[in-house]
């Protein structure tokens, strides 16, 4: 369970990324986060795995206050919270499976890390993750030979291989065409249903968010303006979330 209590985030330059956020996220939820560009969606999602630090309030995950985590404990925490970015962040000139295997590295002994000696179990783990996103047949292909959608799936597989309990995704389909975007979103849905992982996705595109999420969080100017089921999103609500002055500080 993820719990925000009076969480605020002010960037060093004074911009208020998040203001007084209060909410709870139960295990296994599928949440779409919507809002205009600059509203604070990325900031919200990045605080959950501590790519951003919060400046006020309390953020607890499974009962642990995460702003207290440092060094090794922080890295261990991040193993449980996988993150996917809009850019695929894969090394282009190595094979797909090597990219996927890299997410297993933090759990390996030093010598194996140093020489890239992956055990057979690790490789099977990586291959199964690839199979989950229908990319098994591309496992030994060079990553730069794949299309954008395929690369985003590999990126998803890399995160799955570390077996996280929470999946965070920051605009994962923003760079993809509509058909491919749906395919990748289908993968997220399947993972959420079959493995029961909590999924939080930032989506700029409202239709996709409404189609796939069970719960919607609407952010405007760093504040939560809607938090509830998809059914509750009315035309007026959308106007509020996406109103022109929505990004004003």
């Amino acid at each position, binding site marked *: 369970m993820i719990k925000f209590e009076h969480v605020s985030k002010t960037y060093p330059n004074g911009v208020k990324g998040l203001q007084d956020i209060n909410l709870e996220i139960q295990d296994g939820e599928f949440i779409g986060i919507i809002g205009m560009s600059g509203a604070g969606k990325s900031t919200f999602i990045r605080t959950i795995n501590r790519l951003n630090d919060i400046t006020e309030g309390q953020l607890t995950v499974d009962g642990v206050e995460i702003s207290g985590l440092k060094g090794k404990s922080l*890295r261990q925490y991040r193993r449980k919270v996988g993150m996917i970015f809009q850019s695929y962040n894969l090394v282009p000139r190595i094979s797909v499976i090597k990219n996927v295997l890299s997410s297993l590295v933090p759990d390996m002994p030093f010598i194996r890390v140093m020489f*890239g000696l992956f055990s057979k179990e690790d490789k099977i783990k990586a291959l199964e993750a690839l199979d989950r996103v229908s990319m098994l047949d591309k496992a030994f292909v060079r990553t730069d030979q794949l299309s954008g959608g395929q690369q985003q799936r590999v990126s998803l597989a890399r995160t799955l291989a*570390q077996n996280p309990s929470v999946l965070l995704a920051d605009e994962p389909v923003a760079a993809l065409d509509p058909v491919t975007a749906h395919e990748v979103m289908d993968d997220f849905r399947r993972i959420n249903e079959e493995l029961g992982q909590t999924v939080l996705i930032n989506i700029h595109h409202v239709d996709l968010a409404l189609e796939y999420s069970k719960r919607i969080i609407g952010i405007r100017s760093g504040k939560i303006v809607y938090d509830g089921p998809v059914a509750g999103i009315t035309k007026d609500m959308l106007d509020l979330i996406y109103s022109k002055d929505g990004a004003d500080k």
Partner: protein
Amino acid sequence: MNKKLEAVLSKEPSRRVQYSITGAILLILLVASSPALGGANMTSKGFEIGWNILTGIFTPDTSLLFGLGDSGVAYLILQTIAIAFLGTLVGAVIAVPLSFISATNIVPRPVVLVTRFIIMAIRTVPSLVYGLMFIRVTGPGPFAGVMTLAIVSIGMISKLFIETIEDLDTGILESLDAFGSTLFQKIRYGILPQLGSDFISILVYRFDMNLREATILGLVGAGGIGAPMIFALSAYHWHQVGAILIGLFLLVFIVEILSDKLRQKILHG
């Protein structure tokens, strides 16, 4: 808006003026450079030598061309390749740290200015000067050639390495961070694999260039196929000159094709 456009257009001098100015400058420079033609002294002897070299190429000294001993073309080619290969490797060993401390995304600007100045200075000194300096260190022979090429390669290798380092995709590091990697793991799995193939392709390219350089090191006694060629030339052994020139051509030509293929494979799979 339209007025603005017109103003910009009228500012641009007409093509004709631009062309004539360029032409005039070129002409002046050309006339100023004409002393370059000095020393032309084409005697009938020169013509004869030219003819002799040409016939030498078509009637090469076959015992030299196909000989397998220490003075045969095959061994000379092997030696030249060895000099270029080791020279490239040693050059890379020096260039890697130099490149990292010359990349703007790794060290502050002032440091970069200093290190780039050093690289530029290393690059300006002609290879034969290094050759003569290294002969004092290693004695004459191919070892001096290896060191010479190593130093000569540093400039270009680091220039290209730096570009690669500055083009690093930092998003990959962010992803590695997000799944809990240590600094060492980020370098090993985020940076090295990104740099690896580019670095190797740069080295293959430089090896190709070093091979050409290695053919002339013989001039200062630093080994390779160049030395026997000079002996043959000065002794007027045209058939030997022909044999060596053929060997040299084949060597450079084949290595160029292979290195192009290899780089294609490395960069585009």
